[in-house]
């Protein structure tokens, strides 16, 4: 076809057009890629939290078949595994060739043969007992030195305690034990100046368990002389003999086990020893193994049929006493008569082996971190102090050492989104407390309280801001004089650009103290304002037209504002009187009747009253959100075609009816998206919540308590979170959830908006 020249577009127009098309396409694609990239990055930071543990084999050696190891010990660096032979020899296993070296014989200077051995990793003590009723406690210390290009640890053994139980019994006038006697079990704990040795002796009559208390004279130079401070025999409730004794690392809880499978919990303080509780963990099984986990709060028990569970020292239902309660239940183990066990000293993980199966478990979450199987039954397991190595020794005397890689053992769905029964708590709960004072602290990483806090903050902010912003927008677009409209809108836009740190500051340091004892005034204002406004409207409508004409249309507020201000002022001043009449309570401390809203609230609802509370957040954050909702709503209300307003008025509708029945429904989509944009702002708002609340991650809707939001949590904790640590990744997870929340809100908002727009579209 031949197109005349004058109809042809010029070449440059075509080129620019083509080029711009490409440029825009490129820009759009890069934006999508960037968003996906960010999501990808966050995901890559979060995913490791949900992974299990990984192990890699380092060495595997066969030990001499005449060795009969009783226990396996790993040092801090996983370099020099030790085992204790049945004759009391401590031997190291060389990592070069698996050759063993004798380091010390623990019973060489004790009388009798070794009959009891215990390794206590917390204080790195080795305990030995003999059939001559002598005991000794050795402390293992490591000395680091450079060996070629490698660091080597050289263990040394110090005998820190040694006693003859036989002599002590005799001196303390205990009746002598009959027949052949030997020590079957031992425990030793130091906590401050308190030191305790527990020892069980078997005689012809059965088992006897004794608690030896030692006292250390305090001296300025640290450890002073240790002296004997008493000996007690442990007995069950009805005088049962105790077969095994466990002492926690605080040396305040002692647990004994009798022949029937009942555990007895004794509490130790300066006055002596008290039996507090007895409990039977299994209906049918016999407890085979038990030990305290890191921290001395959780007591892990395995039964003969493979059941394994944890009893923890928690406040009882009345919140009075700390007693053992069953808190955790793990997957069954293979039933056997002896289990191998090792606990982590970094966290609440422990390694347990039954027959050929070995599994690494995490107490807090009841998760299995890793599971493996060996060819022959496993006899002993060990974990390095830093939770970086694991080792086991099987019945064929084969020793295997693995590198353990488990950076986030406390992770998992339940940790972040489920209820967990933490140590010391009286119930399973959603809790956030990322750091604690001690090494054995159990981090509580549930994101639920933070999500809750985010929703709570958003809800209160929206409750405050939406009505104000919406009514203001409606008034401005429908009733306000156009000349004033030109002033109001830019003013609101300036308000929108107010830095939120200033709002937070005002909220925290001016509003919070101001409102803390003026809640009754606030309630009065909430009652007065609508009443006065309605009343004013009624009076205005009654006035003769001549009088009403004095004020031009859209200027009515010139009289309403002073009246409303007066109402606010009156309400503010009447507040204390109102409080005096309505909010009176009996002060629990003095017994006098006082008028105080805070106390009244706590007594009536049982909920706390805090100065920096959700009300303050609602108001401060509301101020950040109002301008957003206002401007967008006002725009969409003003965009409703004049023809619809005319049609409505021509049907005899009043201006108010026109506004409510025609303008608002028609602009509903716009008002809705305005609200959603405001909601998005409130969900992500950080500074205001950070400053205007106490940032306590609680889960209650109480308007007079604070909250911690996901975003504030990020701001609070990120500086303390070690790079690539669990907390660091959990914070990213929080960020991801925040992102998802806004994404979901926006998606729902967009779908609803389109639906509404379709319904109320105009021609």
């Amino acid at each position, binding site marked *: 076809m031949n197109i005349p020249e004058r109809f042809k577009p010029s070449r440059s127009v075509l080129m620019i057009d083509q080029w711009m098309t490409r440029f825009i396409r490129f820009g759009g694609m890069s934006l999508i890629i960037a968003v996906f990239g960010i999501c990808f990055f966050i995901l890559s930071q979060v995913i490791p939290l949900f992974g299990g543990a990984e192990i890699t084999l380092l060495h595997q050696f066969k030990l001499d078949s005449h060795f009969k190891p009783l226990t396996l010990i790993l040092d801090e660096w996983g370099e020099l595994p030790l085992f204790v032979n049945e004759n009391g020899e401590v031997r190291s296993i060389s990592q070069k060739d698996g050759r063993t070296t004798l380091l010390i014989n623990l019973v060489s200077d004790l009388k009798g043969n070794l009959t009891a051995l215990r390794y206590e990793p917390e204080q790195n003590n080795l305990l030995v007992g003999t059939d001559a009723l002598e005991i000794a406690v050795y402390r293992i210390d490591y000395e680091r030195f450079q060996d070629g290009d490698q660091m080597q640890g050289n263990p040394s053994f110090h005998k820190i305690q040694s006693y003859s139980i036989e002599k002590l019994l005799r001196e303390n006038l205990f009746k002598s034990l009959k027949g052949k006697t030997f020590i079957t079990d031992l425990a030793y704990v130091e906590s401050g100046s308190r030191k305790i040795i527990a020892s069980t002796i078997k005689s012809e009559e059965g088992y006897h368990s004794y608690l030896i208390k030692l006292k250390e004279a305090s001296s300025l130079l640290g450890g002073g002389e240790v002296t004997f401070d008493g000996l007690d025999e442990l007995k069950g409730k009805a005088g049962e003999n105790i077969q095994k004794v466990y002492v926690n690392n605080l040396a305040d809880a002692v647990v004994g086990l009798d022949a029937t499978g009942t555990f007895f919990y004794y509490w130790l303080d300066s006055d002596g020893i008290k039996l507090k509780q007895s409990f039977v963990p299994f209906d049918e099984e016999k407890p085979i193994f038990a030990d305290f986990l890191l921290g001395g709060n959780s007591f892990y028990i395995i039964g003969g049929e493979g059941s394994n569970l944890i009893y923890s020292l928690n406040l009882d239902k009345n919140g009075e006493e700390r007693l053992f309660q069953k808190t955790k239940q793990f997957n069954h183990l293979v039933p056997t008569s002896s289990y191998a066990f090792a606990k982590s000293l970094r966290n609440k993980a422990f390694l347990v082996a039954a027959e050929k199966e070995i599994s690494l478990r995490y107490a807090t979450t009841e998760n299995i971190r890793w599971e493996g199987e060996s060819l022959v039954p496993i006899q002993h397991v060990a974990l390095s102090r830093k939770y970086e190595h694991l080792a086991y020794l099987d019945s064929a005397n084969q020793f295997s050492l693995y590198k353990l890689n488990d950076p986030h053992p406390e992770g998992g769905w339940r940790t972040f989104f489920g209820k967990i029964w933490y140590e010391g708590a009286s119930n399973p709960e959603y809790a956030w407390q990322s750091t604690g004072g001690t090494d054995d602290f159990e981090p509580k990483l549930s994101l639920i309280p933070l999500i809750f806090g985010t929703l709570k903050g958003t809800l209160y902010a929206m409750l405050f801001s939406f009505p104000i912003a919406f009514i203001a927008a409606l008034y401005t677009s429908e009733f306000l004089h*156009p000349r004033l409209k030109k002033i109001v809108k830019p003013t609101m836009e300036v308000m929108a650009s107010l830095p939120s740190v200033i709002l937070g500051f005002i909220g925290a340091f001016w509003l919070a103290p101001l409102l803390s004892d003026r809640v009754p005034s606030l309630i009065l204002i909430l009652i007065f304002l609508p009443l006065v406004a309605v009343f004013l409207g009624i009076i205005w409508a009654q006035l*003769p*037209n*001549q009088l009403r*004409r004095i004020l031009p249309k859209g200027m009515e507020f010139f009289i309403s504002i002073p009246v409303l201000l007066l109402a606010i002022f009156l309400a503010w001043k009447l507040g204390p009187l109102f409080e005096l009449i309505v909010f009176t309570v009996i002060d629990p401390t003095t017994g006098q009747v006082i008028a105080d809203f805070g106390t009244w609230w706590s007594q009536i609802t049982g909920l706390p009253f805090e100065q920096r509370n959700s009300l303050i957040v609602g108001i401060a954050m509301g101020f950040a959100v109002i301008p957003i909702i206002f401007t967008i709503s006002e725009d969409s209300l003003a965009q409703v*075609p*004049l*023809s*619809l*307003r*005319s*049609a*409505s*008025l*021509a*049907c*005899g*509708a*009043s201006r108010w*009816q026109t506004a409510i*029945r*025609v303008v608002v*429904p*028609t602009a509903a989509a716009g008002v809705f998206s305005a609200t959603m944009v405001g909601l998005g702002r409130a969900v992500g708002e950080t500074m205001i919540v950070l400053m205007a609340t106490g940032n306590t991650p609680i889960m209650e809707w109480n308007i007079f308590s604070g909250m911690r939001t996901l975003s504030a949590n990020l701001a609070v904790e990120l500086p303390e979170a070690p790079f690539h640590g669990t907390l660091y990744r959990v914070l990213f997870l929080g960020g991801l959830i925040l992102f998802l929340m806004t994404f979901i809100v926006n998606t729902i908002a967009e779908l609803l908006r389109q639906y509404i727009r379709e*319904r*109320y*579209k*105009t*021609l």
Partner: protein
Amino acid sequence: MDQEHSKSSIVEIKNFSFFYGESQTLYDINLSIQEKCVTALIGPSGCGKSTLIRSINRMNDLVEEARHQGEILFQGDNIYHPNMEVISLRKRIGMVFQKYNPFPKSIYENVIFGLRVAGIRDSKILEETVEKSLKGAALWDEVKDRLHESAFSLSGGQMQRLCIARAIANEPEVILMDEPCSALDPIATAKVEDLLHELSKKYTIVIVTHNMQQAGRVSNYTAFLFMGKLIEFGSTSDLFTTPREKKTEEYITGRFG
């Protein structure tokens, strides 16, 4: 002749001038509109027809800085008197606009909008009104099965008749129509014109139109406006056959405008 008409005149426009801010749009209009007749307003674009018709039910109140002089009497009362209730005035003087403007609601809700805002809730009354009004607007047969569908599902001509139904649902005394057919095709226009005949038996109708044939067909009286001044007013047959003014003749014969 004035004397004779005033007996049945329902709207009386007296020395009415209108200003948008500083610029005057209407100059000293005197016009009386007869009850149950169709009065057509004709004139070239921008001569003030819409301004005049909108003054009759005070729709011009919406315009900022608009002023007027003189008065408009509706059944003897000055509609600009301070004590005049605008809301009831607009119920009594309904309006149909140039561009059909149904509300984004169902057909049903559109028709009863006036009743709803008047606070009538009795569903029997509402249903009767819907049927009566839609029948009155010759739309009933076309929409009776889809009353609860969106008004936007109708064609343009149907929507305009819906707007007429909405106006007559209030049972007004006067219906003002500002170029009601300008957005419609000839067939739809014909339907609306037929409707006007029917409606004029019950209602007083004031209609603005650019279509001379239409004015001739539907109206009993015609007023010719030019540059904001009423040039000629009389019965349609007189005005179209023997115009008194030269301007009128020039306009209706299509020499300008």
